[in-house]
């Protein structure tokens, strides 16, 4: 899951103490502010940098044990940095019975994620996260890349949607060394077309 991103120094955020103080001023400094403060930090940095959490503890009446307790309890919070874009694959019931696992396999392949605990592509482009239901169950299986939701996906569609996203975002997909051609097969134009068609012909 998202909480076990590989440590990647280049993705560490630089925390601006003024920003944290501003959030404390806007949101509050008593114990009820713990969750919204962490949400503000994560919205900005996309994970919870240690430095920002220390600043919260230093500037509020929230104790370190409460803050870290909360940060590790809720699935939303991540203590490790993530890639530049998030991919959320739904593993809710409807998506599970409609093939969410295949989306996972396909995306791990195109991101070059080998180790099951690795969730961020080595080049820092994308982080893959499992989520439980995003409320589009009748369009299952579903994934969300950045802000965009993709419905009724097959594994191959998921790769294609991601390639499209990567192109627009100028990212390189590590596992996408052209189309894989293990033993030198050439793919002629008609096949490429067919493959595209099979992906689009969804109910």
């Amino acid at each position, binding site marked *: 899951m998202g909480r076990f991103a590989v440590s990647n120094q280049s993705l560490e955020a630089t925390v601006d103490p003024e920003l944290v103080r501003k959030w404390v001023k806007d949101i509050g400094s*008593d*114990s*009820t*502010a*713990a*969750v*919204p403060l*962490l*949400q503000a930090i994560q919205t900005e940095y996309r994970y919870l940098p240690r430095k920002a959490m220390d600043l919260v503890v230093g500037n509020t009446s*929230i104790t370190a044990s*409460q803050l870290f*307790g*909360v940060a590790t*309890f*809720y*699935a*939303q*919070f991540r203590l490790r940095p993530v890639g530049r874009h998030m991919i959320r694959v739904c*593993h*809710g*019931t*409807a*998506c*599970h*019975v*409609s*093939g969410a*696992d*295949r989306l996972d*396999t*396909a995306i*791990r392949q195109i991101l070059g994620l080998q180790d099951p605990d690795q969730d961020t592509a080595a080049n820092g482009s994308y982080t893959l996260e499992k*989520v*439980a*239901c*995003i*409320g*589009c*169950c*009748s*369009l*299952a299986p*579903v994934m969300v890349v950045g802000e965009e*939701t993709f*419905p009724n996906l*097959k*594994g*191959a569609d998921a790769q294609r949607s991601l390639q499209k996203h990567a192109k627009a975002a100028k990212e390189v997909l590590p596992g996408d060394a052209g*189309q*894989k*051609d*293990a*033993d030198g*097969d*050439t793919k002629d134009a008609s*096949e490429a077309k067919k*493959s595209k*068609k*099979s992906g689009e012909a969804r*109910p």
Partner: protein
Amino acid sequence: MTITIGEGTCGIAAGARDVAALLKQRFPEAHMQSVSCLGMCHQEPMIEIANPDGKSYLYGKVNKKNLPKIVHFHQGKGDIPAANFIRSSDEPDTDKGSYLTSQTRIALRNVGHLDPTSVESFRARGGYKAIEKILKGGMSPEAVLEEVKTSNLRGRGGAGFPTAIKWGFARSAPGYPKYLVCNGDEGDPGAFMDRSLLEGDPHSVLEGMLIAAYAIGASKGYAYIRAEYPLAVKFFGQALQDARQLGYLGDKILGTDFSFDIKIKEGAGAFVCGEETALLASIEGQRGMPRIRPPFPAIQGLFGKPTIINNVETLANLAWIINNGGASYAAIGTEKSKGTKVFALAGAVSRGGLVEVPMGMSIGEVINKIGGGSASGRAIKAVQLGGPSGGCIPASMFDTPIDYDAINATGAIMGSGGMVVMDSQSCMVDIARYFLDFTQVESCGKCTFCRVGTLRMKEILSKICEGKGTMEDLQILEDLAPQIKDASLCGLGQTAPNPVLTTLKYFRDEYIAHVQDKRCPGGVCKALITHTINQKDCTGCTICKRYCPANCITGELKKPETWVIDQSLCINCGMCKEVCNPEAVIVESLGLTAAHSQPMRASA
């Protein structure tokens, strides 16, 4: 001309925004209106075009390619585009349109009919009439409570506790201030009723909160909405602002002595936070751990004060009850389950989406009549009802009426309304394992039986799915279940064994097939299936080879007779089957007698 576009989360996902932009280009003079999901998620993106002469037409599955035909028709050229046409003001009773006409919409009365970001559009449909009737008409809190009591409304969050009785406790409890909390956590995977309400008709939920707060004497409210629903958070926030500005929220509402204000708290992704005491801990900034009840939140809740927590759908019914009278609501439904229930229909069904039906309708009617039956043409096997707390009801019992007690009698529960339909290509053991995996991860860890018991159950189920189970394991599951139910503190642990118990009860043969024959009848459990290529159907197009993540398919271009899968490398991920157009990839679960220790791998 007025063009209405369904831009709920599902509509946007299906491409509604592109369609809207194109329509704007084609009909620059038209009045464009954005509404939320009409409930026909299987038809997204949907548009309704009302011609200047007043006739309106509803279309589904609109995209770049078929849009020109629709445009032509409305320019007076060509015929009605049959493939997209759902119904019109002249012809409301079409086959596709019956999805909507078979329903009775009370909670969803406005969803898909108004712009959720516009309070005017809400008021044009009779919004805020109920709170005006109460406050300006001088209805006392007791009278409001009495009306809800007459309606016999039971909480829609899962347990079905009578709403008015719960309110009564908080009303008479000492303590100030009192709180009213809207539970919009909706953690059940496979359910999206509350999202659709918050996103499609936020003011109705808000009006329901006002009515409930007035009845119990609350002055502060929280709307706890899960962060995974960004549009719901945004639209509800907008609704709060608009209502405050118009004097429906805040100090001295509509010039009376009633003051009430609401804050939004975003959930942070913990299923257990839907449980009421955990939800309160979460609002207080703690880990969302449930606590022992009593004291119930109605007596001692948020910050130790009397607190009522109601589900989104419960709240959405209230204004209707005040406007139409509790007796009209109680006239719908069965003896002990009154009114309507909203379901989120998904899975292997043709027409998935939101369905609101009167209590008493049979499960089969919802799935077959409204949902249009199987999506694949394969036989429907079961429906999963009530999420992780619920269970699987087999197709043979689809005449069970929608009624709290009748559904409980099957071993499932009504729950919040997720209905995931499964056909013959689903595996009931896999589904049980899936839910136990879910509850095990989501257990807050406070109770040993919940924390360790669900883990143990999950391990056994995984073993069975891998073909390593024994008949004794089934016995252990049945012994563990009542202990977990009895020894857990909150509803999560108390209901966690339900998916296992119902599948063991109704689909025992599937468990036995896994244990004794090492076979997965649904063709799902990876350790027990094989993928092979049927060279007769193969065209040698090379697509499967390119998508196979294990690099285990070999063959030469356009030479079907050379195509094989190396079974020692294949991980049974199913990618090849998905991409193969001539459907040449075959999935089989051939099984194995108990004497073998490894599942059989058929050679190609």
